């Protein structure tokens, strides 16, 4: 189970069965889907199986992102594909409600997750990477937080009625300023 992490605006905590409703809505949300890798509907049973399959030790941590003041779930964030040898992991996140985007939750959550990723007491990684669709405005946030554009998979995805580039970003621990 991943540790609970506290930021200025969010708390990152382990996902429990009590969060299944939120996770199920998140996984199927039609407005969020163009930014995520999902295409097909996800049943409640699929979602429960996913929640039960989460294993920090083999996959890396996945947290529920909750508003710090109220505890209200706002999104999910993860550091998956954790390689112990190469010391890297892939960052992924999403914020469910449109009205919660642009309020600093994502930036705060990423800073907190990166602190955990690079900290010797945390995952002690050398590198964190991510991929983002070209049409996802979150790419500017990643750049602002120090991620460098490392390459482009041209027309790699089909999203919102068109083939889209997938942009690859990476951040080395030496490049990260907490």
């Amino acid at each position, binding site marked *: 189970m991943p540790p609970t992490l506290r930021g200025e605006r969010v708390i990152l905590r382990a996902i429990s069965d009590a969060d299944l409703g939120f996770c199920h*809505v998140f996984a199927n949300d*039609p407005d969020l889907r163009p930014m995520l890798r999902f295409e097909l*509907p*996800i049943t*409640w049973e699929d979602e429960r199986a996913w929640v039960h399959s989460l294993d920090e030790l083999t996959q890396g941590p996945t947290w529920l992102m909750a508003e710090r003041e109220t505890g209200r779930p706002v999104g999910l964030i993860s550091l998956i594909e954790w390689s112990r040898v190469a010391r890297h992991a892939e960052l992924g996140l999403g914020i469910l409600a449109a009205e919660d985007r642009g309020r600093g939750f994502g930036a705060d959550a990423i800073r907190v997750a990166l602190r955990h990723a690079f900290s010797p007491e945390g995952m002690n990684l050398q590198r964190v990477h991510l991929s983002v669709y070209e049409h996802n405005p979150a790419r500017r946030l990643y750049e602002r937080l120090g991620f460098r554009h490392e390459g482009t998979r041209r027309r790699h995805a089909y*999203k*919102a*009625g068109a083939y889209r580039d997938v942009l690859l970003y990476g951040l080395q621990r030496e490049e990260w300023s907490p």
Partner: protein
Amino acid sequence: MSVFLRGPTLDFGPASPQDREAFARAAWLAGRAGEVLLTVAPRGGRPIGAASLTNVDWRRREARLVAWWAPDVAASPAAAAEVVSVLTRYASDELNLEALSAEPLTRDGLAALAAAGWEGRTWRRS
């Protein structure tokens, strides 16, 4: 309810295995509840039917559209056309399919296809 697709008046949610079983019991739908099975409900309401993309052929990029109303539901032609329209847009814009076909059992079903821009019993990406 988790919403997977949103139409102007209808919500489409992921069907559960129980839904799948219930829909499969409808004789004419038996075996046709395919890869994509969604419940159909008025916005914020309880499901009144189901819609499915079945026989999906990913290589030829085509599928069959099947829709079904619960027996006690008298759906309007506009609602039927909305189901076809939303599923067609999903098949085109999210699944990158090129063609859909359907076998409507009633004149209303055929009218719903026409209202959603189909030609006869088929839709093909223009």
